[in-house]
């Protein structure tokens, strides 16, 4: 990591590795989360995101490498600075919502009055105020998700670590979550979130780190990463048989979504010629050159590696 960092790294991993028996979940991972960033940890299922996060949380201990939080080695104490939303959600289902939130507030060191104030504020904010005296198992899945989120922000920590935060949320609540996250960012919080959904990261994050099979593929500011890839991509809105896209001249790769397709252009391809070619064959309702989507960037980066090292360990799902 040679380039100068504009902001102080609040979470820093240096050469972190973790293996389960013979399976290497994370190997030699370097990572620096700038203070105040919304940092996306991206990668497909089983790529080592959750293991990385659990090591930051001091739930797992790395086999090798260093983890620093606010410039101090991570330990049980550093947990106080972090709000954590694990990938696999869980709450004490037999507790009342209010009691449960108070319990976690106390664990984060809040006094009774302060805890009550914050619990009420947050329940209000996520529109669950009238559920305070209901038991957790009376809540719907989505409501439990929101309670779980409150647990992570209740202590008002400077760092927020969210593992797949929007999984299981309906669009309305996903929006609410995004609103809250942006609000927290304006208040100077650092947010580290992991996701396997590239478009989500694209919307939320200003920094990203792509990992694949426990290794970093690329990282940096999102804008810079996409700019580096250039306007080598086109979005084609169309009606008709999209199959024709795959055989069109100058097309390297197609992500066909039915109503529109994202097309990666071969190096030196002529976009205008492509449009002319398509116009005669399908009903093109829109055509725009753009920077490649994160998904394309990722596939490209991983594709390069796969070619270099095709044989690797199998899936690490569930680790």
């Amino acid at each position, binding site marked *: 990591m040679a380039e100068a960092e504009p902001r102080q790294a609040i979470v820093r991993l240096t050469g972190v590795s973790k293996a389960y028996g013979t399976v290497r979940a994370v190997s030699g991972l370097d990572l620096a989360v700038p203070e105040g960033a919304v940092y996306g940890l991206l990668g497909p299922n089983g790529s080592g995101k959750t293991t990385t996060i659990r090591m930051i949380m001091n739930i797992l201990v790395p086999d090798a490498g260093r983890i620093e939080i606010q410039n101090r080695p991570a330990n049980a104490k550093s947990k106080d600075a972090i709000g*954590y939303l694990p990938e696999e959600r869980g709450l004490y289902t037999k507790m009342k919502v209010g009691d449960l939130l108070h319990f976690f507030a106390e664990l984060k060191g809040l006094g009774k009055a302060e805890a009550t104030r914050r619990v009420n504020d947050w329940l209000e904010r996520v529109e669950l105020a009238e559920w305070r005296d209901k038991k957790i198992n009376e809540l719907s899945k989505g409501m439990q998700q929101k309670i779980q989120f409150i647990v992570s922000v209740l202590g008002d920590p400077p760092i927020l670590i969210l593992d797949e935060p929007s999984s299981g949320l309906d669009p309305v609540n996903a929006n609410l979550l995004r609103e809250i996250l942006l609000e927290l960012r304006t208040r100077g919080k650092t947010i580290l979130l992991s996701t396997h959904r590239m478009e989500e990261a694209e919307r939320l994050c200003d920094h990203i780190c792509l990992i694949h099979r426990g290794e970093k593929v690329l990282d940096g500011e999102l804008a810079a990463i996409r700019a580096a890839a250039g306007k080598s991509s086109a979005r084609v809105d169309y009606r008709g048989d999209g199959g024709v896209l795959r055989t069109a001249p100058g097309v390297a790769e197609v992500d066909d979504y039915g109503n529109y397709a994202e097309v990666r252009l071969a190096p030196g391809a002529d976009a205008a010629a492509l449009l002319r070619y398509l116009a005669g064959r399908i009903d093109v309702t829109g055509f725009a050159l753009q920077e490649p989507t994160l998904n394309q960037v990722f596939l490209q980066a991983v594709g390069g590696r796969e070619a270099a090292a095709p044989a690797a360990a199998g899936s690490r799902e569930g680790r």
Partner: protein
Amino acid sequence: MTKTLIVAKREYLQRVRTKGFVIFTVLLPAIIGGYIFFIVAVVSKAGANAKAHLAVVDLSQQVFPALRHELSDKLPNGQRQFRLEEVAATPATLPAVEARLRKQVLAGKYTGFLVIPADVLQSNLAQYHAKNVANFNLLGTMEHGLESAVTRVRLKNAGIAGAQLPQFFATFHLHELKVTASGESKNTGGAVVLGYILGFLLYFVLIINGVTFMRSVVEEKTNRVAEVVLASVDAFGLLMGKVIGVAGAALTQALVWVVSLALFAAYAGAASLAAGKAGWMKQVPHLGPMVYVSFVVLFLLGFLVYASLYAAVGAIVSSEQEAQQSQMPITLLLVAALLMGFTVLTTPNSILAVVLSEIPFFAPVLMMMRIPIANPPLWQIVLSWVLCAVAVWLIMKVTSRLYRVGILMTGKRPNLPELMRWLRYS
């Protein structure tokens, strides 16, 4: 530390608020109390029903008056228990008299009839004819009465009578005095049951709370709440808090039981006094304060030792079914302690007994047995407490390391080499 206490508080409150806990805590004393009430009621009722109307054929011609004197017991309601009626007969008329009496017994005129043979002073034999010859209480009283009556007659025949007689029938008592360093004290023999009481109390409390506790450890793992809590507390703090919380709940339960049992015992004692059957109360030992302090301390520490073992099993297994199967060895440890109690009771100061009573898994039962009967030196008592506390700490250290790995593992139960690897992982 404060976080551990916060976890402990939650665990305690959650536990004592469950229906199961309330039911067991209240129900068990209620059942035992009901049983005691039942016994007391039956005993006093049985006394009232034990009235007997007897016909006595005294062929010896001399035992009847003495027998009437012996069987003069009065029932609590002031009536005589036995009504005796002498029926005259000779050896020649006996068969006819017996036949008549049999009919009268069947008709319900008499409860039964006694036939005292002419040679009773030599043979020590008599016959009792009745519809019910299984009323042991009644039979016992009659037999004892006959024995005394015959002895009385013999003494009289030997020329001993009047004021001299009572001293031959005085009840004999043996007073046990235990020799201790601080002089001699009164009977404490009955106190050995304290070890068993503590053992069984622990056993019940563990059966009721241990499994549900272990289940809650497993449940926190399987429903993933553990990871949320671990975001604020380390594994040691979380597990220690849970163990302390459940121990608090267990102590609450035990106190409710012990206090209510003491109340029932007081009730039974009062009832016995009223019924004039207070003999068993002499068995209630006189105990020093150290015994009571030790009882509470050893109960709490003993529970902590076993609860930490349950936590260890909970940390390793990944489903509740597995947990059920794996808890067996833990209860066996406690049963082993109860069995070793027999050895310790006979030789409470042997080296074996001393050593066994210092081992944390056995100390709650065995040290508790030794304290009232063997007067172990203070250092032995305190050492057993310290060892228990150290054992809890060590078990929890290892358990929390296993837990950190186990929490993220699903699937089959790990074998020993895998467990060793888990310890290295964390």
